[in-house]
């Protein structure tokens, strides 16, 4: 693996996580009501932020009403 390929991999990852952090912060502040009816305290919001940053495409899909509602009881 060349240094340029490695740089591209890390840059891509950083970009993905960067977008995820912005999307995640937006979700914990304004979007949780669309994901769950349950109350989500601030400490739990902080706990789920890394996951929101990592899985932001799935979370955005859920926020947009897409996804697997059959799984949701």
């Amino acid at each position, binding site marked *: *693996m*060349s*240094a340029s*390929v*490695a*740089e591209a*991999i*890390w840059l891509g990852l950083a970009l993905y996580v960067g977008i995820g952090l912005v999307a995640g912060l937006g979700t914990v502040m304004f979007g949780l009501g669309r*994901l*769950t*009816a*349950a*109350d*989500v*305290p601030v*400490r*739990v919001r902080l*706990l*789920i932020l*890394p*996951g929101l940053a*990592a*899985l932001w495409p*799935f*979370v955005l899909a*859920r926020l947009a009403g897409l*996804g*697997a*509602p*059959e*799984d*949701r*009881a």
Partner: protein
Amino acid sequence: MAAGYSLVGWNGFKRAYDGVMLAGLAVFFAAHLGAGWMSAPAGQQPSEIQMLIRASGAAAFSLLTIILCLGPLARLTPRALPLVYNRRHLGVACFLVALLHGGLVVLWYHGFSEMNAFVSLLVSNPRYDSFGGFPFESLGVAALLILFLMAATSHDFWNTVLGPRFWKGLHMGVYAAYGLLVAHVMLGAAQGEAGFAAAALAGVSALLVSGLHIAAGQREAARDRAAAAEAEGWLDAGPAQEIPDGRAVILTPPEGERIAVFREGAKIYAVANACRHQGGPLGEGRILDGCIVCPWHGYQYRPEDGCSPPPFTEKVATFRTRIREGRVLVHRLAQPPGTELAPTLIPEVVS
């Protein structure tokens, strides 16, 4: 889950569980570092950071091995069920120890250079075309990313948002992570001097994990082979009196998911066997205080309609039941989750 979330639903058992876990980790680190220091000739001790790298790598790998053994162990003996209950705390601890290992490696082996340490992680050993010389660090990075994803989504919030199937699928990635870590150890530490210890740890651990999974899998497969007899859509669950009070027998239909057939006094109920939380076997649970309780994490369902008691919102499918000549019959067609069905009464018990 419709009630409010909490950071951790602490109780006495969880505290004790985490206490044992932290004590185990502390003792492991102390013993590893102490033995490593004392076994080296005077003045020839390894550097402290490298000792910590070794200890954290061994601890993370051993912890993941234990985690992966708990699932099949609980299938083989109910005595291991309590160990499954708080397994996600083990998983998060495993990720944190692995992160410590990875962070120290990046700092120590890839830092102190003009080259970016993370770039160095992927390019310093260029032998991607070799088996024996493969850059094992890349395997560790991939495993750490999987462990991160699992730790980051370990809260029940994620089970609700992603759905139990997606969540379970995501967390099955632990097997990929473990495979990567076995290769990471075999192509890394196991190839150095005294590498036999690392090779033995990885080899024996992998055999243990595989062996337990095969044994548990065979037991499940045997249960599946003993599919219930079916006549006109009705499955035979056996004599009603043989179902222990407050417990269930598990039916395996010729097609479809397993069914848990419970007896509570004179009443017979049938619900889907898989818990909505993490797929735990409800049929191995009990009826306590009028609710079916999952043996894995204690999720509750009312036997008559498969609904969790308020404020919770999980629902499992229910099945029609009847009794003919003292035998319990269950119709193979599942009712929509949450459908209330009247229990079938056992005549002898009623009379």
